[in-house]
């Protein structure tokens, strides 16, 4: 598998050097793998910190900036960051009003962020943690690792980020983040596997004419393999799975997300089918975002995330944001 890299060992450091070159508005600590908005710590503001394995770009470093994250900690490809990164980042962004850790629900992320929270608290930083677990393809049970965190992470980071930017206290920012998690559900489909630099090839085989339903964003196979479907059928299957779990009584924010290698042309076509299904099910759509935001390297495929939004969530979603990958308002 051909990749645009030097050697697998340096992909994350190389990417961070590129971010530093392209984004003077960010402080990029390549050696310690921490990306921080240049004006941090922002006086009087709760700080938002996230991170996770690399390979999901622009998540998370692409969401650092006013109105969203204060810091991001990228781990190795598909490997959660280590506690040292979060401890260092927390120290860099804490203004004294506390730090919210936004953590996708994977064992590695949960454990490393938990250790980091303990260490940061030892250093006098007030930490709250919100776990994102929106993927309905995974059965949630206390006997399992629980649902995965995927597309809803973007909603949490944007909305909690806007709340923090407005000066809300840590408990309020955390409560809003939890509200977003509670009201968000996702479902993903792969048309092709991804290839990780470490493995140097595809993480699973997906024959022509077949797709994987209910995939995550780490190259793991999904819950079920099926014959190839049309964009319309994929929208139906995805939304069936989501709406079985969530019956929105409020207008929804919709994320039509590309896994990385699916052309934007196809993704917009898929967005049309998603809207068609939602209209048919009488789910009101407040906003639609289409693009590659929570990716899985070079996987072809897509995911849909719905987030039920009341007036306040919608206002916070619309609030100005200025990051590498998400920008609007002001």
């Amino acid at each position, binding site marked *: 598998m051909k990749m645009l890299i030097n050697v697998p060992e340096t992909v994350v450091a190389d990417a961070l050097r590129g971010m530093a070159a392209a984004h003077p508005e960010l402080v990029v600590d390549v050696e310690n793998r921490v990306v921080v908005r240049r004006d941090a710590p922002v006086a009087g503001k709760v700080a938002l910190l996230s991170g996770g394995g690399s390979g999901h770009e622009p998540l998370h470093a692409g969401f650092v900036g006013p109105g969203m994250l204060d810091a991001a900690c990228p781990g190795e490809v598909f490997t959660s960051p280590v506690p040292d990164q979060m401890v260092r980042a927390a120290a860099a962004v804490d203004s004294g009003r506390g730090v919210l850790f936004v953590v996708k629900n994977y064992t*590695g992320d949960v454990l490393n962020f938990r*250790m980091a929270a303990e260490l940061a608290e030892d250093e006098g930083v007030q930490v709250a943690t919100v776990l994102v677990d929106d993927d309905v393809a995974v059965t949630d049970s206390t006997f399992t*690792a629980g649902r995965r965190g995927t597309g809803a992470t973007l909603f949490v980071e944007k909305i909690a980020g806007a709340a923090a930017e407005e000066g809300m206290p840590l408990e309020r920012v955390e409560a809003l983040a939890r509200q977003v998690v509670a009201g968000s559900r996702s479902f993903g489909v792969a048309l092709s596997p991804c290839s990780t630099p470490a493995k140097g090839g595809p993480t699973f085989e997906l024959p022509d004419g077949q797709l994987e339903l209910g995939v995550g964003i780490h190259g*793991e196979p999904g819950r079920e393999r099926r014959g190839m479907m049309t964009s319309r059928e994929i929208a139906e299957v995805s939304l069936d799975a989501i709406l079985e779990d969530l019956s929105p009584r409020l207008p929804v924010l919709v994320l039509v997300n590309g896994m990385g290698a699916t052309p934007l042309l196809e993704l917009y076509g898929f967005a049309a089918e998603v809207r068609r299904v939602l209209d048919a099910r009488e789910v009101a759509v407040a906003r639609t975002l289409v693009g590659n935001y929570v990716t899985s390297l070079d996987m072809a495929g897509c995911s849909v995330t719905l987030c039920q939004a009341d007036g306040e969530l919608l206002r916070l979603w619309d609030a100005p944001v200025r990051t590498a990958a998400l920008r609007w308002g002001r």
Partner: protein
Amino acid sequence: MSDAVLDARFAVRWLTAAAALIDRDADRLTELDSAIGDADHGSNMRRGFAGVVAILEGAPPGTPGAVLIAAGRELISKVGGASGPLYGTLLRRTGKSLGDAPQVTAGELRSALDTGVKAVQELGGSAPGDKTMLDALVPAVEALGTSFDAAAEAAEEGARATVPLLARKGRASYLGERSIGHQDPGATSSALLFAALAEAAR
């Protein structure tokens, strides 16, 4: 049991042997993780144990407990993922449990490892049968009562026995029924850890 002197140098020998086995088998570990995970277990373990070897190559601590604690810390700050905190905790808690004796008995090591493995269970919220590293670690510590070689064999057998299991923890759990039929990568690396222990004791 072997006649090995279980001092700091023994601990260094153990971890160095583990690093070598992991380096040798990293691609196999990644391959296993590719089937039911995210294809990084080999590179995670290799990166972590390379770090461990690096810090032990200089002036290693003077007691086996301190060596294991330092190695555990290094894993925690180098590996990430699920295996970093879990293996880091295993070594750190085992080391702590050994105290600051310059030399320990096989029985003391076994009971310290038992504490370490319990800490892994607690941190991971997992139990044997969940198709994780615990399926190798738990029987290995058990068999350590007999000999180092028996422990290595038990770990290896425990790893193989994960094949028919349905995963309930870690990434493999996302696959549900499809996790059946594959050997757990973490249990496989745990078997390497105990193979290295037996090697160090020879």
